[in-house]
């Protein structure tokens, strides 16, 4: 399902003395089956945007189109419940959403709310738990007895088990160790290819953007200021730094070498950079 934002604006607690504008004049287009990264400084409106996307808040201005559905300020809140069916949303620190007595029951909760039978939900839940590499022995354990990393994976399985067409990830790797972060990102990338999902990833880690994304939205002060492929976005590192953002380490290194006169072209990840350098010195290609 493709997603379009047209002149979207949003104000928290509109019409009260506490009104705070969060988004204004947001325009972008996310193609079907793409892996879109959303980057931006803290407080630039990324998380607010995904809340609008999942129908948790209604826009105060403009129009959001998701597949065939349209959301405006006048949309009835009740119709949004049905719409969320196709959208899986992994919030920041999703382990806070665990509440059931067993891991399996918690993962089955979402699918059953969206109309799967108990048997179907169990199959979907087991598949999702296997995907996030939770051992079968943990299925009957209480989610509150797990480690932080495992809780995170169970919570993510709970979203994957809903079999959404759009998967929204709000800083899913925050607070994990580097190995856990890389595992999780590889899992999302595989899932996207296998199930042909549209993935929207909010992140501060440019390495993952360079490695996995094929489309990037840059947020600044409540609006989208740039869209493009990672190569286009990371080509102008000075501009990104002005927005308090960065380029991946590999790109940075490549830029330094280029400044020294080497004919490189802004690699987006370490493998690509290694290949280019090996190509320059004429060795065997990296495999």
């Amino acid at each position, binding site marked *: 399902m493709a997603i379009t934002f047209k002149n979207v604006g949003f104000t928290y607690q509109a019409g009260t003395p506490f009104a705070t504008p969060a988004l204004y004049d947001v325009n972008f287009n996310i193609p079907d089956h793409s892996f879109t990264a959303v980057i931006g400084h803290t407080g630039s409106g990324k998380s607010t945007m995904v809340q609008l996307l999942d129908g*948790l808040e209604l826009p105060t201005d403009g129009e959001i189109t998701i597949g065939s559905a349209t959301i405006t300020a006048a949309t009835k809140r*009740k119709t949004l*419940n049905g719409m*969320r069916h196709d959208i899986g*949303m992994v*919030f920041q620190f999703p382990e*806070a*959403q665990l*509440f059931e007595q067993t891991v399996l029951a918690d993962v089955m909760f979402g699918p059953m709310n969206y109309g799967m039978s108990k048997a179907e939900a169990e199959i979907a839940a087991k598949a999702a738990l296997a995907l996030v590499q939770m051992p079968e022995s943990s299925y009957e354990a209480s989610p509150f007895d797990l480690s932080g990393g495992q809780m995170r994976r169970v919570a993510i399985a709970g*979203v994957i088990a809903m079999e959404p067409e759009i998967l929204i990830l709000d800083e899913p790797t925050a607070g994990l160790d580097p190995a856990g972060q890389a595992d999780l990102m590889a899992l999302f990338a595989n899932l996207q290819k296998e199930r042909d999902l549209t993935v929207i990833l909010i992140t501060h880690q440019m390495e993952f953007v360079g490695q996995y994304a094929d489309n990037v939205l840059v947020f600044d002060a409540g609006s989208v200021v740039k869209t493009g492929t990672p190569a286009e976005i990371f080509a102008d590192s000075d501009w990104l730094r002005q927005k308090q953002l960065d380029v991946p380490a590999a790109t940075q290194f490549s830029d330094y070498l280029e400044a020294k006169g080497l004919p490189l072209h802004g690699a987006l990840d370490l493998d690509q950079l290694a290949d280019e350098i090996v190509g320059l010195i004429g060795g065997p290609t990296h495999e």
Partner: protein
Amino acid sequence: MSNMILGRYLPGVSWVHRLDARTKFILSMLFIFVIFMANNIYGYLFATAFVALSIIMTGLGFKVFFNGLKPLAMLMLITTFLQLFFMNTGTVLVHWWIFTITTDGVINSVIVFVRFMLIIMFTTILTLTTPPLEVADAMESLMSPLRKIGVPVSELALMVSIALRFVPTLMDEAQSIMNAQRARGVAFNEGGLIQRAKSYVPLLIPLFVNAIKRAIELGDAMEARGYRDGEHRTKFRVLKYTKIDGVAFAAFFIFAIGLFATRFI
């Protein structure tokens, strides 16, 4: 969730905002007693004028104060109706089945309603113009004589301050857990009563688990920094009476005398 008026502080720079929290606290309490001196229409008019003047001085406008009445509207109506039906002296106006409405009943219910409204509005001035933590400090300061008879005043005050401090944190957390569960297909506020109650389980369990975790962490953090109970702790926020507090007390004193005088009109 965000329309809870209880303890909602609205920042401002008026004289009322700058009053010492203890002054506002004491005057609010005194008002509840003083208002009972009014026994005729002039007394209530005088009191209403005083409350209106106080509200104008906060610079917040009347609207927020009327909003503050809403959560208590039910209580006010019930009390008023009880007065209306259970007062049986005076001339009978309407008699139907077991209900009798008399002139005294009508007069009394109006009086009760007005008195109730004035008390709520006047005490709302305290909560709207004073940060909750200052109210807690004021309570601690005013209760400090009780220390002599062994009441752990500073510990009680600390508990109140911590509880107040975590209200917004827990509200935010409730909001984000609610969003996460809505994304997983929970429809809050839909269906029958039992279904509604059930839909709150996925919200309340994580909220409690997190609140307990947070309490343990806070306890550890306080211990790690050497917190222990005891006297003579110095304060970060110091309460201080100034000239305007004297003015406020004087004004209230004049009001009380004036109100007493209306009894003889």
